[in-house]
């Protein structure tokens, strides 16, 4: 049996061509082969959420996913893409600001599930937040702060989106004024 399989993994926007054994999980390959140790290994059976990564934007437990099966998918880990990701950064700021990080071991998984949640539910209520967290445990038990951090991140992202809209409409106004001025000048020039 030829053990090694050539696999191309797209992690945080970078392509990694690796030769791996097919029985290795995505978690093992991320941590051991690509030395990205931000994704944590804990229960090994999908109960704790420490190993959550996003595949094509959807949360999965990387301890229960074969690395070979992640080929062709966009893998996003807590390390984040080169050049940054505004959502991931906002979520991490909110976790720090709200005291949602104690020992920090569950945090990478919590941040990733928040990114998934806010991508389809930008204004979650507490039930929706707690529903997203059912597969995650925090052994420091700081759940209240985690829920608050997720609410804060949602508010921050909404505010940022509104800021962008305001900036866009201000630019449109400015562009309109410039056009008006240009038309006025053209009229005067023609007269």
């Amino acid at each position, binding site marked *: 049996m030829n053990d090694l399989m050539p696999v191309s993994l797209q992690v945080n926007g970078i392509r990694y061509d690796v030769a791996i054994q097919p029985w*290795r999980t995505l978690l093992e390959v991320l941590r051991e082969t690509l030395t990205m140790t931000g994704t944590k290994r804990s229960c090994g*059976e*999908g109960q704790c*959420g420490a190993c*959550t990564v996003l595949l094509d934007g959807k949360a999965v*437990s990387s301890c229960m*996913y*074969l690395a070979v099966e992640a080929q062709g998918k966009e893998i996003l880990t807590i390390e984040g893409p080169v050049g940054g990701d505004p959502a991931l950064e906002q979520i991490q700021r909110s976790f720090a600001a709200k005291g949602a990080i104690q020992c920090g071991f569950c945090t990478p998984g919590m941040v990733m599930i928040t990114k998934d949640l806010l991508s389809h539910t930008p204004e979650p209520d507490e039930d929706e937040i707690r529903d*997203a967290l059912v597969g995650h445990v925090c052994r420091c038990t700081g759940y209240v702060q985690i829920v608050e951090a997720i609410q804060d991140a949602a508010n921050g992202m909404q505010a940022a989106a509104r800021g962008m809209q305001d900036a866009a409409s201000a630019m449109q106004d400015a562009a309109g004024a410039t056009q008006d001025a240009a038309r006025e000048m053209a009229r005067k020039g023609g007269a």
Partner: protein
Amino acid sequence: MTYLKRLPKFEYVSPQSLPEVCGLIAGTSNDEVMLLAGGTDAILQMRRRERVPRRVIGLKGVADLGLVREQADGSLAIGAMTTLQTLLSAPVVIRRYDLLRETAAQIGGYELRNVATVGGNIAGALPCADLPPALMTLGARVRLSSRRGDRWVPLEEFFPEFGRTVAENDELVAEINLPRPAPNSAGTYLKFHDRHSMDMTVVGVSAFVVRDDESRTFRDVRLAYASGAPTVFRAKRAEAVLRGQALTEEGLEAAAETACAESNPRTSWRANGAYRLELIRALTKRAIRRAWEKASSQTETKP
């Protein structure tokens, strides 16, 4: 607790079409070859060395197994590789099969629903699986495919004994078909478990009811159970107690009593048999009542 090892060594293949899968499993045994759907059960079985296959056939790339679509005859076809998340967010499921949506939404968290599949939940033959009771009460049939051809099996005849299905070694679950629900019908799935959504079901009850045109009596009642016996099963005698009757407290009591008599729950560290029987009694009554109310509210919104 069993210490979870790394996965055992295996050869991995990823066929792209259903005929290719059928070719790969023809003439093999379940000991040497394992079909890997979502993997949320299968990977744990391999970690615990309950199964040590020589070869793993990954099904995630088989595009023709991942579709949810309405058929010309009004029935619904669900590809075996449909994930629970895809199922519960499919517009047709939201519109016509709320029981199914409700059941899938109660399974695991995001991480699990994004990979676990309908076919895996059935083919695993676990008595605690949540989808089979709901699918059974909706009248599901299972399409088994092999190189010899296809055959259809009613889901309620699919689990002959604990941990086993009627599928032969060279067959795989390819599709599930659901008839269009009758007018004035609705169902609900209630389950009891320790940690919200993340633990095995201690007892699960699916109740599906059809009310008569005047909404006074049960035209039909179907009940199926998870973790109520060594396999998921339908409690047909309990159903018969209510069929043609109006909803009364005595009727619910009698149906629940009969359902308990038809059950054979086991004792495990999660719960003992007597406790599970109490759950079956309580959840049966609650589920039937809720399904009845749901059926009447649907009648009001969709005359």
